[in-house]
């Protein structure tokens, strides 16, 4: 039996086969450049796809993608967690995001926390919608969204946020 701790010399030599051919690297770079160009200048990324997929009910606050985020920041009904930006909520409640997260983790529903801190659900929802509006304005200015679509999204967002918070569907 060969020593288990040492591979054979041929196997060691074969490691040298792990290398990149320059032609393949160039071809890969060309493919990536093409994909990026297509994404930037076609409808894949900034055309109808985005307009069609901006989620109804989103209040914004997510610079890129979505995130599971802290316990309490999710609509169990399905909307991604990041649509309630806890930083905005914490700002309305005059507390830090970390403090808010601690309270959510302790088991209190968001509506109860809002009430305990002397605020109303309306105030929180308005702040979240305002934040969403500032982000959507950018998209409207860029021609990616029409003003009517923006209003529609904001109205839908307000309804869903209100319902989610009032029905205590946001909690730890």
């Amino acid at each position, binding site marked *: 039996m060969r020593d288990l701790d040492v591979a054979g010399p041929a196997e060691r030599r*074969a490691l040298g086969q792990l290398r990149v051919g320059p032609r393949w690297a160039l071809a890969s770079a060309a493919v990536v450049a093409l994909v990026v160009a297509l994404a930037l200048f076609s409808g894949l990324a900034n055309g109808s796809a985005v307009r069609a997929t901006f989620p109804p009910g989103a209040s914004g606050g997510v610079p890129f993608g979505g995130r599971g985020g802290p316990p309490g920041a999710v609509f169990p009904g399905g909307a991604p967690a990041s649509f309630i930006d806890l930083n905005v909520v914490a700002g309305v409640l005059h507390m830090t995001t970390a403090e808010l997260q601690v309270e959510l983790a302790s088991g209190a529903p968001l509506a109860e926390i809002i009430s305990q801190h002397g605020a109303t659900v309306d105030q929180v929802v308005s702040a979240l919608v305002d934040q969403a509006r500032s982000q959507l304005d950018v998209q409207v200015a860029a021609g990616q969204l029409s003003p009517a679509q923006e209003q529609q999204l904001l109205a839908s967002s307000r309804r869903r946020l209100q319902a989610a918070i009032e029905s205590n569907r946001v909690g730890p």
Partner: protein
Amino acid sequence: MGTGPTGSRRAAERLRAHLPGLAEAHTAWLLVILGAGLAVRLLLGSHGVFQADAQTFRGWATRLVTTPLSDFYGNGTARPVDHLPGDLWILWGIAHLYRLISPDANFQSPGFLVLLKLVPGLADLGIGAVLYLIARHLAGPGVGLLAAALFVFNPAPVFVSAIWGQWDSVSALFMLVALWLVLRGSAEWALPALTYAVLIKPQLALLLPLLAIVWWRRYVQPGRRPERGPDLARRVRRLALATLASLGLFLALDLPFGVGLPPLPTRWTILERLDVAWNQERSVSANAFNLWGVLAHASGSRFIDDGRVFLLGVSYQHWGEALLALAVAIALVVVWRRPDAPAVLWATLTITLSLFMLPTRIHERYLMPAVVLAVLVAALAPGMRWLGVALSLTYLVNVSVVYHVFGRQTFGFGVSARPSDPVVLAMAATNLFLLLVVFGVGIALARRPVEEVDALAPAVGDADAPSAATAVGEAAV
């Protein structure tokens, strides 16, 4: 001239006499690397945390010590728990340990945060040690030390473990142990290690077909046709035992949480828990700078539901799944053609990198296993050093940007601005380039001339087994 052979013999004897000392020196250096790595993590550990994730861990820790395990997945949290029991057991362990140390069990305390960060920190060191073993096995102790150091002091894993406080290195460690066992000729015993990794990160289950093919091509069909012999019978017995051990491990970890396999009468099946985990995120990318960072977010678009149609009437999600299936199939074909160490290393890297790059709903941190393997390949093959560096860099930028944006904390890696779309696009495009290049490496591996491949040594650690390389030579004829 007559003194030549005698001189060589003497030199060889002298070398042999020094070998134990050399081995000890390498072990000492490894301990220095690991010790310094631990010190770095302890020092940085107090400089931040991703609050949202830490709060999730704290909430789960509270639940683990206050409710029966069988109720852990039950009602009581508005956001369903999206982890499988694998790392929950580790959390259970440190939560109980902390309660012993601090009877008030205040999981919000800094002391518990230290424990939370110690877990991935120690897993990092474990990865460093296993990288040393693999690289020593394949290329000698010096390269082993290089591999360990490249990972232990790599800023990206340090950031994820010590500052962010996430546990991605735990599953990566068990995946790496499985790879080590495969390379040592104990592919069967890789199965329990991989099972545990899958119970933490279920997507690593895509490595199971790779394991099956390596086992088959090394021990059952090293030539063009299946072979039967006493060695095969021994291998089959060992595989049966390892499969039973894996199943036992699976049930031992899952049943206390009320999770089982159908048709067991448990409260949940593992498929239901996977469904919960999988449906937590529905965006094309959960902040991973991957293919969808290029295709979907190039213009700075925000959330995109992956159920939406992308191209040709097919949704983003299904495009991602199809591309991933294709990538895994290519990796398996390459390993089928040559199940030797370089190909197995390449295929493991390819599958883990594809798992980050191609499917939708992927988090930024999920690049960790690919970074571990890229570092290993970088240490072993000088022609691949750039890959380890590049992937580590894009990973660091990805986790730093997300940490900054969502955690609202910076830690001086130069990411002081809000993430701009060019950053996302540049890093995602770089990762896409790296993925394509890695595929090029594999295709070149599979197309090596027969005579080169034919010269490879027998399957590692199993001198009795037929030569895998010879088998490849035969298969390629």
